[in-house]
């Protein structure tokens, strides 16, 4: 027997323990996506592989896919075979986080000699060989090294063979090794904090607490679902794709306190690496649903268990092996927008207009800081504008659904021989409406030295901008070009010639509501700040006289 108050305190503590795990990872990490952007997730699982708690820090694609990934470790490593100091790893896109760059690492936590739980983390490693992260691979084998479920450490001793193999295959071996060590340290930290909590509360396992967390969360989520009118809600959303546009067709069925998604009718898989393994399709779709219906319920196994997803085999949201999947986040990030198109019908006013997404140019060079020969790879994350809300403007330069921090320009330039010449808000990019969509950004990047650079484009919403809702207009589409003017492609590996700079204009978010209802003061303020030009304001808003 435990009082509910104790259990609530312990529940909060578990979330805090996971957050500590995440923070250790970020502080000890070597690669900018982890240490600056937080491209991670961290969580605690019970011995059945059910997620009990997760860190507040983390990105939705990782969190919700990790929630489904831990159970797959048990086939190779049954719970009773686990030893203190062990760590297990995989980067299987279909059984973990959707592409090879993301490793999921599980470390068992022991209280005395008894295993009490499993800490897991999913982390984006900058490079694991192959073509590197980008959409150009034609099958999974071109995309990098695959790590089946295997030992990363045995009873405290790192698996050197595996580590050497991974480093030998990486363009950034130091970042790869450093990040992996940070993940192991974070798991150890989580385990130590968990033991402290058990001691403090006089418990020796997580059984009662786990049951309480899952039952309470399940009931709260079910109650939230039951507030939606039952029925089937349909939406179709078009995005750019690679070789041809992609239709995301989704039917959302609300029935008996459950929500199921069916992607029947969605475009078939691409021959390029923009396909989305269904574990990741579910991860982002469920995130979009949860934000709307139950934002306050902590994420865990139970909150996800009432959602299900299916999609036709070998559609772009359910490609089978050995399809290429490296840049699966592009379409992954569009899924919440697609799902919200359904939810808006059930709960008008509770969703966002479509968002301008996040653009992630991967830049590669062969000359280091001091002009020496050195292969390097740099992954940056830059946010577009968020869609407008039914009561507020969209946030400027804030991505949705990805939740990753941008990398400070000074940190970029300290890590790679690059110069960011411009990074500012992009005028006239937020969609028009009663509430304006968030503004995107304009970013200009060049090499520090007189050298050529290679970059991999994985950019969406160039032909299909973020649409508005309830009478609001679309945000500005994105553009990719060289500073000298030459237009570049939105997808695929391209060259920035010596002396040239890459200019990207990241899309704005869609507007919400009838523009004629926009507050004149708000329009005037946008014009005086320069976020909206006088000309654009006059043409979009009849009530604005300048």
């Amino acid at each position, binding site marked *: 027997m435990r*009082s*509910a108050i*104790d259990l609530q*305190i312990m529940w*909060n*503590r578990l979330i805090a*323990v996971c957050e*500590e795990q995440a923070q*250790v990872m970020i*502080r*000890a*990490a070597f690669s*900018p996506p982890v*240490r600056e952007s*937080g491209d991670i997730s961290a969580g605690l699982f019970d011995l059945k592989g059910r997620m009990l708690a997760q860190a*507040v820090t983390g990105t939705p694609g990782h969190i919700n896919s990790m929630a489904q990934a831990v159970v797959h470790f048990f086939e190779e490593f049954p719970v009773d075979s686990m030893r203190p100091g062990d760590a297990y790893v995989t980067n299987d896109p279909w059984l973990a986080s959707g592409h090879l760059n993301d490793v999921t690492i599980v470390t068992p936590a022991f209280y005395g000699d008894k295993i009490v739980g499993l800490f897991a983390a999913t982390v984006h490693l900058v490079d694991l060989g192959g073509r590197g992260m980008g959409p150009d691979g034609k099958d999974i084998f071109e995309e990098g090294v695959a790590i089946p479920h295997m030992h990363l450490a045995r009873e405290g001793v790192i698996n050197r063979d595996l580590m050497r193999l991974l480093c030998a295959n990486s363009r950034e071996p*130091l*970042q790869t090794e*450093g990040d992996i*060590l940070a993940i*192991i*340290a974070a798991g*150890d930290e989580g385990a130590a*904090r968990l033991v402290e909590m058990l001691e*403090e509360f006089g418990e020796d396992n997580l*059984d009662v607490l786990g*049951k309480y967390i899952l039952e309470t969360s399940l009931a709260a989520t079910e109650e939230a679902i039951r507030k939606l009118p039952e029925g089937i809600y349909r939406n179709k959303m078009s995005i750019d794709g690679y070789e041809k546009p992609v239709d995301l067709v989704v039917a959302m069925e609300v029935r008996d306190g459950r929500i199921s998604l069916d992607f029947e009718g969605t475009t078939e898989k691409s021959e390029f690496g923009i396909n989305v393994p269904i574990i990741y399709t579910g991860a982002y779709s469920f995130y979009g649903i*949860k*934000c*709307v219906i139950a*934002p*306050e319920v902590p994420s865990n196994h139970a909150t996800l268990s009432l959602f299900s997803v299916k999609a036709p085999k070998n559609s772009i949201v359910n490609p089978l092996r050995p399809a290429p999947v490296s840049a699966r986040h592009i379409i992954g990030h569009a899924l919440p927008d697609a799902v919200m198109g359904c939810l808006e019908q059930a709960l008008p006013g*509770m*969703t966002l207009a479509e968002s301008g997404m996040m653009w992630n140019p991967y830049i590669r060079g062969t000359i280091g800081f001091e002009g020496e020969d050195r292969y390097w790879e740099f992954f940056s994350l*830059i*946010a577009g504008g968020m869609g407008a*809300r039914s*009561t507020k403007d969209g*946030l*400027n*330069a*804030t991505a949705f659904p990805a*939740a*990753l*921090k*941008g990398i*400070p*320009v*000074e*940190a970029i330039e300290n*890590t790679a021989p690059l*110069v960011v*010449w411009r*990074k*500012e*808000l992009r005028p006239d990019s937020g969609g028009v409406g009663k509430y304006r969509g968030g503004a995107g*950004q304009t970013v200009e990047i060049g090499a*520090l030295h007189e050298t050529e650079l290679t970059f991999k484009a994985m950019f969406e919403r160039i032909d299909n901008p973020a649409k508005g809702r309830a009478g609001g207009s679309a945000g500005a589409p994105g553009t990719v070009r060289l500073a000298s003017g030459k237009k570049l492609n939105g997808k695929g590996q391209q060259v920035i010639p010596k002396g040239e700079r890459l200019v990207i204009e990241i899309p704005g978010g869609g507007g919400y509501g009838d523009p004629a209802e926009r507050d004149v003061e708000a329009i005037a303020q946008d014009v*005086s700040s320069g*976020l909206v030009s006088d000309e654009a304001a006059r043409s979009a808003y009849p009530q604005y006289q300048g």
Partner: protein
Amino acid sequence: MTEGKNASGKRIARLGVDIGGTFTDAALEVGGSRYTAKALTTHQAPDDGVIEAIESVLRDAAIGFEDLDLVVHGTTLATNSLIERKGAKTAMITTAGFRDTIEIGVEYRFDLFDLFLELPKPLVDRELRLPVRERLGVGGRTLQPLNEEDVAAVIERLRTEKVESVAVCFLHSYASGVHEKRVRDLIKAALPDISVSLSSEVAPEMREYERFCTAVANAYVQPKMASYLFRLEQRLKERGLRSSLLMMLSGGGLTDVATAAAFPIRLVESGPAGGALFAASVAAENGFDDVISFDMGGTTAKICLIDDGRPQTSRTFEVARIYRFKKGSGTPIKIPVIDMVEIGAGGGSIAHVDSLGRVAIGPQSAGSEPGPVAFSRGGTEPTVTDANLILSRINPAGFAGGRFPLDKDASSTTMLRTVGEKLGLDASYSAAAVAEMVEENMAAAARVHAIESGKEIRNRVLIAFGGGAPLHVAGVMQKLGMKRFVVPRGAGVGSAVGFLRAPVSYEVVRSLHQKLSRINATEVNALLQEMSASARAIVEKAANDEPLQEIRMASMRYVGQGHEITVSIPSGRFTEAEGLNLRKAFETRYREIYRRNVSGADIEVLTWSVLITTAVPPAAQYTAPSGDYVAEPSSYREVFESKTAKIASYGIHWRPDLKPGARIEGPAVIEEEETSTVIPTGMSATILPSGAILGELNQSEKASVRVKEYADA
């Protein structure tokens, strides 16, 4: 307490003075006695309130300005102007292409699931973020020279816009301030009256968003703070003050007025820092190891965790959070700071009913002008103080020593109109709801802060001070599942007393990048010596020949990492071989934190810090009282208990009459000049040897705390 005397045998007189949102407090310690005084904060000219409070306390002690050996001052004026956006008209000059850096921020939604999230608004609007062409790169190398024509055009803009203060924020200026300094020279030549803050001086650390925000915030508060500080110093001298006036810093140390006026952002949390030092000294005096300090004034409440007498510290903090409890919803400030959570819940916080029909408190505050309705100074909205008065927790005739008679009828009428009529409650019930809600908010903030810090709270002692905390401490304590609280002597002026517990100290932080594999000892020695000399110069002015300690630290990381760990380094001269010792020190500390070293990676030092400090004044020692006794109330008053919603007869005690060893049965109110301590039904209190009140749950009450049982069926 031991009687302090200086070298010439004269009694040492030390004065602390703290400007809060509502009251200005003074605490004077002279020869083992303490005198305290309060004056209303005078927002238009805060020095008026300071002088009034000092004169009042000097009168009580029958000494003059010329007898003071030390005056320590702290203030939340800078914080308030940031929160209320009442700073100078400020512009920002920045690298072309980066005018939106302070608006773009970290591009992060700090709440992953809240679709209706808002982000903090920059202190400088886009119109006054003025780009100039220039560019430094990594290591401070020049990629593009400063375009002085652009600077001239920007200066013209400053002139026509009548800008009062400007922050100069260029990329990579943590490595070289050469362009920022040149811009300052050009501005000063053209517009000598404009205040200029350089990001390379205010917070010379990598990561442009945090550095720019800190410099902009410094610029925003600087003109008002500088003119206030110099004016105050002048007025104190005119009145005969011969000793130094020292300013309390956010990190818990002290500095002189000139330094404070140049970097007023370092004062932002000085009042609360004094409070945390006060709580730490109370814990030490009364023999408690782990405590929580709970400081509630007129405008805000602050909560700080103190382990083994040391308040938690941090190198960044957020000011003006728009979501009370959420990290990321405020503006980041990079300064050494005592780590605490602050919420908009003080005696002056205004109660209202929100759109969902719930009682909500703050963050709007009536402050001291107009103040609560009961002050009869023009306040028209009910505050937490009004609620306490309606509940009869406060004696209308005894507030602030009887100098401010309170109008209870006015409080009741307003409470009824604003809260009661909307919810169908009478004035007492409405007031009880307000008191419950404010206590719930504070308990929630404490819980979140403890969790974020990974700290246990229930076995700690809650130390309550500031005018509002003793009224609410019993409620907050119970909501947190804690069993004991302490209200120290001088609770109403805790921060001011805490200032007297601060060591005189100053920390200088500088960036100098060094790889341990090829460390340049000459360069490092020169830097450390210069840092040491500049910190010593500041500290010696105020240290009264006390011996000084020097603490040197280096922030280090493996090459390739983004976050540093801080390692103590020896104070002597560096030799080339020192690289090896530094590596060992780093690896040891790294293993303590992360359990494993990264083999084969080089180590780099990014920043060096030198702290020059006097010793922390030792805690006072008290002997146990000769005898315990039960204190009889001097009278009784009917108090409306918010927890039970019933009227109970409270015994009223006058605190100065209670001697160590006294036992007070609840329900009771212990009144004193500055505040009142509420001991509700089910609790009792004793007076400790130090004179502090220790409140405890009665044994039977501990057993009967009812909780819903969750059966593992």
